[in-house]
């Protein structure tokens, strides 16, 4: 089980959190003019990297706030935690 450092509450067990999947996937602007391929990329295509993954987590059974995590998917080590809307820290990019 992961020990996740919520930026608002500190380290808590993974069972308090809900994974929100890959981060930094923006909903297409002007949806009516977007192609099917653009919608596919937004809805379905995921990086699923073997290495650093940028992902969203929600502290569902705590403060209920969303935040971003950079995690190594091979070791499951959490490399950085940063707030929604922020870009990943230089050290893990």
């Amino acid at each position, binding site marked *: *089980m*992961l020990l996740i450092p919520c930026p608002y509450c500190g380290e808590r067990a*993974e*069972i308090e959190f*809900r*994974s929100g*999947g*890959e981060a930094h996937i923006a909903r297409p602007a002007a949806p009516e003019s977007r192609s*099917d*391929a653009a*919608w*596919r*990329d937004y*809805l*379905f*295509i*995921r*990086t*699923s*990297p*073997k290495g650093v*993954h940028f*992902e969203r987590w929600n502290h569902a059974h705590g403060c209920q706030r969303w935040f971003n995590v950079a*995690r190594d*998917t*091979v*070791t*499951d080590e959490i490399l950085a935690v940063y707030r929604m809307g922020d870009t990943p820290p230089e050290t893990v990019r």
Partner: protein
Amino acid sequence: MQRYSIFSLARNAFTGHKNWQEQWRSPEPQPAYDIVIIGAGGHGLGTAYYLAARHGIRNVAVLEKGWLGGGNTGRNTTIIRSNYLYDESARLYDHSVKLWEGLSQELNYNVMFSQRGVMMLAHNVHDVQVLKRHIYAHRLNGVDNEWLTPQQAKTFCPPLSIDKKARYPVMGAALQRRGGTARHDAVAWGYARGADARGVDIIQNCAVTGIRTERGRVVGVETTKGFIRAKKVGVVTAGHTSHVMAMAGLRMPLESVPLQALVSEPVKPVFPCVVMSNTVHAYISQSDKGELVIGAGTDQYVSYSQRGGMQILEHTLEAILELFPIFSRMSMLRQWGGIVDVTPDRSPIIGKTPIDGLYVNCGWGTGGFKATPGSAHTFAHTLANGEPHPINAPFTLDRFETGRLIDEAAAAAVAH
């Protein structure tokens, strides 16, 4: 190929079992092949077997970064069934069950396919309605499935608790009698032996490090044993598909997550069938070796760690003990995780890619073992002809663009 039979067994017994041939060669790669398959799991080896046996294409190599059958093929809970809701899925998975039924004879290799029945439990009114709907849909598709009362379920599987006071009492069950289990390693070994005997090169300890393309067409693969030229390349790498396809510059509608399973200490035969429950999320059977084989759920996040979280196991074992209090004092022997590639609609992708000559068979998620023969058979057809078999034609990569999904996420009669 040395054929196996009671006579060859007796003959070899007289010579102290010293004259058995190796089941497959360990060749060095040739500089070029007609078809290169990446990944020597059940699906990849099966594809090579059917290419050679059904399509006469023998200039084929299967590349494996580890040892054959060492990934999810050797890690799964070996459940075989075809009780999927949608027509496309029912056709694909039942095609597989039909191939399973003759597989030991076809391969001259005992895959220990045992049609002991797969029983899915209903614990509430919604479950009852859903399972009955499934049973009717399956029958329309020629897939056997029948409804059992709690007492009939108990008779079919005596260790089951049908106590009305249970938190999730059993209100009935759907039983597919043609479902069951098989010996997972034997499937990989049997296909490997059959493919090798027909001239396929199975190259282990050979990791693919790149996929080379020229003008939108695949020309070969870079490996740790050098460049191997190929007219066609089939990627059959399960949980590593996103990683491998990225070598060709393609991004996939997949997420790779750990899926766990565990086995108990071996005991005498006590559990005659496979039982699954979606509501409490547990599935269990007993191997011929005597271990209880228990499947747990996936972790909620992308990971290649092959471990899985303890809380997932705890949740599964709680559910098992709710249904089978008899097992409360069993010791668990081993636990492990495998990495499964999950698609958004929980149906596989078997077919072409935007790159000419590059084909992919992936997205089997948490339930690929049951489909091994059908997947391999239709994928071999697709590779050989350049066009899909009618059975795998709906399972395209571009369905995520056209929107023609096969949404088994809610319909597969299995918890996700």
